[in-house]
């Protein structure tokens, strides 16, 4: 029963269910991994439908972009501490190296600033070693309503 779960496990289960309801995340196999006060981590296990280069088995940069966009949006909600409609304004992704075929890609994004209507994010994607990232992102999100307790 859910009474046996720690608050963290309950949160994980809640987020897992919410994410399972997003069709494009389902299609890419993207799942919840971890979160903190102002960051979120999602993972995308290696899967045949992600491949862009059949000769090498390397996955599409577009799939990594989707992972990072999703982790970024999630980090904004985590920092806000509640659900709020938000939309990506812009996202830049630097592809530092190809993801290694067969490995799960992990996207970790921090929402480092929220002003009245804009949230700022930065993050990395890696496939096991955060010090050896495969991608780096920065971006901004528009918040559809004003967050309480912010003055900027």
């Amino acid at each position, binding site marked *: 029963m859910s009474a046996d779960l720690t608050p963290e496990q309950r949160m994980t289960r809640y987020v897992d269910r919410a994410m399972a309801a*997003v069709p*494009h995340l389902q299609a890419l196999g993207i799942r919840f991994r971890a979160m903190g006060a102002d960051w979120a981590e999602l993972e995308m296990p290696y899967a045949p439908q*992600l491949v*862009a280069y059949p000769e090498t088995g390397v996955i*599409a940069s*577009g799939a990594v*972009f989707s992972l990072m966009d999703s982790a970024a949006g999630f980090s904004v909600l985590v920092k806000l501490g509640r659900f709020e409609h938000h939309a990506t304004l812009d*996202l*830049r992704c630097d592809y530092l190296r190809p993801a290694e075929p067969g490995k799960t890609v992990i996207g970790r994004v921090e929402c480092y600033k929220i002003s009245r209507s804009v949230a700022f994010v930065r993050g990395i994607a890696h496939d096991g070693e955060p010090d050896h990232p495969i991608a780096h992102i920065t971006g901004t999100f528009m918040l559809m309503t004003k967050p309480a307790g912010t003055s900027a």
Partner: protein
Amino acid sequence: MTLPDQLPPYAAMLGLRQQGGALVMPYDVSLIGSPGRLHGGSVAGLMEIAGNLAVRAALAGVSAQVKPINVTVDYLREGALEDTFAEAFLMRIGRRVANVRVEAWQSDRNRPIAAARMNLLIVRQTAA
């Protein structure tokens, strides 16, 4: 720009087709992000492939690999649950780098839903 007969799995998952000079991502439930709109990542995936194919087309006959260095996507409007189109414009093709601009739109070509800038690395195979 020509889409290969045998699409790589990711492009096949997006259901990509070619229509004139544009790439089309037909609407499908699997592209949805939040209720009632496309996931921004699916639109970015479409635009990246359009940019990559445009560079490959410009290098027709040249033996080279084309790899993304970075992409910046500006989201201009919500992606509705409709077919999405993308067209890439080559700003410059050098020996090692291509600079590309990509636009995505839906029912109205004059109301783009996203604009992207891509830099791609061109790795030319030197004759052995």
